């Protein structure tokens, strides 16, 4: 399998770089245009959250296999303040920054699997996957 590729998130320009990396990887793995858009959009949301709430972090994209299935895994990591209430943050419209509050719930809907690990003062790691149909 191809090696993982990572994008460092430090500015709003890096958000574009990260989602382009995710889209290119998805395309090379055989995802169709609609799934490519779903994956790129989810990464755009998660990378922006890193930039907004943690200041910096990284987005790592890799190919995965489970049995006969192949897919893409995206890990978004930061050492920021953490998410105090995961359940609340996953509600449509909930935002602590007067944002739209659609980033986390939207990214979850766009991907097949979505996991949040977070700890106050330590950081947040969001791992999401999409399987090729």
């Amino acid at each position: 399998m191809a090696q993982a590729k990572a994008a460092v998130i430090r500015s709003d320009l890096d958000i574009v770089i990260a989602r382009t990396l995710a889209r290119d990887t998805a395309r090379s793995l055989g995802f169709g245009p609609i799934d490519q858009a779903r994956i790129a959009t989810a990464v755009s949301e998660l990378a922006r959250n890193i930039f907004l709430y943690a200041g910096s972090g990284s987005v790592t994209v890799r190919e995965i296999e489970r049995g006969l299935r192949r897919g893409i895994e995206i890990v978004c990591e930061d050492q920021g303040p953490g998410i105090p209430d995961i359940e609340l943050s996953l509600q449509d419209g909930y935002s602590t920054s007067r944002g739209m509050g659609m980033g986390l719930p939207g990214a979850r809907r766009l991907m097949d699997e979505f996991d949040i690990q977070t700890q106050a003062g330590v950081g947040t790691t969001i791992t999401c996957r999409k399987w090729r149909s």
Partner: protein
Amino acid sequence: MNSSGLRIPILKVEEVLIASIQVALHDASAVQFKDDLLQKIHDTKARGVIIDLTAIDVVDSFIGRMIADIAAMAGLMGSRVVLTGLQPAVAITLVELGLELPNVMTALNLEKGLAVMKNQVISPDEEEEQGDGTG
């Protein structure tokens, strides 16, 4: 990178402003675009604005919100917004993301967008020609 130099040109054709976004927008350039466009609507008193997204392959909640804001603010200044060229994958993703764009009209391409402007914005009094209403 050209983080601050990037500006999206806004053209005026009769009473309509046309902006075609040809590059991936990062957040700062999106904000710049919104400010430029609203200023131009104010300065020109344009009655319609066409934003062409043919070249855009990702509309996330930040850009979605920018479009909704532009539409709302343009509306307050008496101007209507038509989005053109939304790729099918982008439209599907927008809905799944949970974003709706109320007050925003859409058209398949720039040409159809101009037709919508002509019929519904510039000379809406000719509406009886349209038969079944929303068409």
